[in-house]
């Protein structure tokens, strides 16, 4: 943290998301702001100009190194590709805390995030509970090469295979694609292909949203049990109206907050645990108003981002 003086009095910590266009990142941003207030540091929030573009995120890391920040908190868009630039950061004396998605790298101070595989496991159990352990199940994937969703998808499929022999996965090889409208069109097509489905699992916000729209539009919303991921207003509304039945929620606010806090503590010389699981919970229509879930979904972004 020797560069603190060059940047004024406060330490400057770069917080680097994978993208900027999902509400998920806004929650992380809010948490990071909260963390910076708690710890009395300054943060520098910068995402890649193209979402989910690894090279673009590498550039942001490189530029942060050039800028001489005191620490980097990053949600890496790839568990390998970001290793090298982050190693370079460490070489330049900039420590790194990893949040949200894991990375195959020992040099990090700490990983604070969801165990994505576990997210898939939780989703599988929730869906199985909704279906009483039997029925035909469909899973629509996100786009090719998306690491965290792939972990969830594997977690889901392996859990179904291991724990729920009564569940029959009838389709799991179709990708929705990286944009909302391509997920939507694929969801429409899949629903047409399978008139008889009992349950659906989708592992991220765009696929959940696309599936919800397709179900609404085909008039089948509510008749098929759906477990999706993440919470946006549209998805929560779906939950309330009984069109979605479970949303696996992560705790992005906590990731941002703890990420910045951990970095500040590390810079202050306090040792940090290597791994912190921020946990996943399943929100359902019934537990929506419970305090645990309310804290996760009703963020008033203006408190942090205005």
């Amino acid at each position: 943290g020797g560069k603190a003086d060059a940047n004024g009095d406060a330490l400057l910590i770069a917080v680097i998301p994978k993208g900027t266009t999902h509400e998920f990142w806004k929650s992380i941003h809010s948490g990071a702001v909260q963390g910076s207030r708690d710890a009395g540091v300054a943060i520098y929030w910068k995402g890649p100009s193209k979402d989910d573009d690894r090279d673009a995120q590498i550039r942001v890391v490189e530029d942060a190194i050039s800028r001489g920040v005191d620490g980097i908190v990053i949600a890496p868009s790839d568990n390998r590709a970001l290793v090298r630039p982050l190693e370079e950061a460490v070489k330049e004396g900039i420590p790194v805390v990893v949040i949200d998605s894991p990375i195959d790298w020992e040099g990090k101070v700490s990983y604070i995030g969801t165990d994505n595989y576990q997210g898939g496991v939780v989703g599988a159990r929730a869906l199985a509970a909704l279906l009483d352990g039997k029925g035909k199940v469909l899973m629509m994937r996100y786009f090719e090469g998306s690491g965290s969703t792939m972990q969830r998808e594997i977690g889901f499929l392996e859990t179904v295979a291991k724990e729920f022999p009564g569940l029959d996965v009838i389709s799991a090889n179709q990708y929705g694609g990286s944009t909302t409208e391509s997920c939507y069109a694929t969801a429409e097509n899949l629903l047409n292909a399978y008139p008889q489905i009992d349950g659906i699992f989708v592992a991220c916000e765009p696929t959940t949203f696309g599936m919800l729209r397709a179900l609404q539009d085909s008039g089948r919303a509510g008749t098929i049990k759906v477990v999706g991921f993440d919470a946006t207003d549209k998805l929560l509304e779906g939950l309330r109206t009984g069109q979605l039945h479970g949303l696996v929620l992560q705790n992005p606010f906590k990731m941002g907050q703890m990420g910045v806090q951990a970095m500040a503590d590390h810079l202050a010389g306090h040792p940090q645990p290597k791994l912190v699981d921020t946990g996943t919970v399943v929100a359902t229509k019934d537990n929506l108003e419970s305090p645990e879930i309310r804290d996760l979904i009703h963020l008033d972004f203006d408190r942090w981002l205005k």
Partner: protein
Amino acid sequence: MNRLRALLAPFLGLLFVVLLFSVLAPESFPTLYNFRTVSTQTVVVGLGAIGMSFVIMSGGIDLSVGSVIALSSVAAAAALNAGWSAAAAILAAILTGAICGLVNGLLIARLRIMPFIATLGMMGIARGTAKRITGGQKIDAPASWLPDLVSKSSADAWLGLPPGLWILLALAALMAGVLRRTPFGLHVVAIGSNEATARLCGVNVPGTLTRVYALNGAFAGLAGAMLFGRLSVGEPTAAVGLELDIIAACVIGGASLSGGEGGMLGAMIGAFLMAFLANGMNLAQVENYWQEILIGAIIVAAVALDRWRHRRG
């Protein structure tokens, strides 16, 4: 006639795809409901292809439509949020698109910047503006009847088909007439065929080109409104690369990027061909990458066939 013969290959291609998947997925593909689904999926690309046909006929190209569609979908959402009616929101989207198109047109017609470059610039400008307006987020909008236009439920259907499909077909027919039956359309084809001639014959070339790009922008705007209807949110990162699908629809339908050749019916066939292909592959559980490979191959094959037909006369 000549122009009809040019449509034969894309039409046979469409027929082939439809028959193929009717065999591969007999339960789900050849159903009225699935046809309604494919229609609503085609509306956005189809509307874009109507405007793009004019641009391509005039010898130009517009790379900015994907971005303009996204910006217009954001505009529609913002208008609804501001308490405007659904009709007013559609108009706002069309107007947004038309303004972007107008700027393209002025750059191309007045400053004489090549269409590829001018619209490449606009591609970044419109996309950046959309993100600027929304702060990079999806924006929600209150409920309205706009999404019903691209609904595939029979409750919203007109004569059994989605309203969006009727709108698409009606506009395609109307604009085919404009292209072939009006002085404006004749001027567009003349510019694409030989711009110097058009100029010497007293055709207002800059004015016509400006109108062509503004028209294309307006159709992109309408497509944006329909995209908003489909997603029910305005999304600044939507429709990335959609311009290439739209151009591909026109080209598969027989349009020539050197201008003067093409037509509305061909563009519609091209748009439906791509939509049926994607739909059929999903239904038949074909891996996604085959779709990319096949669409690429079809584009090349369509043009190779056309070249071969031309050479044999």
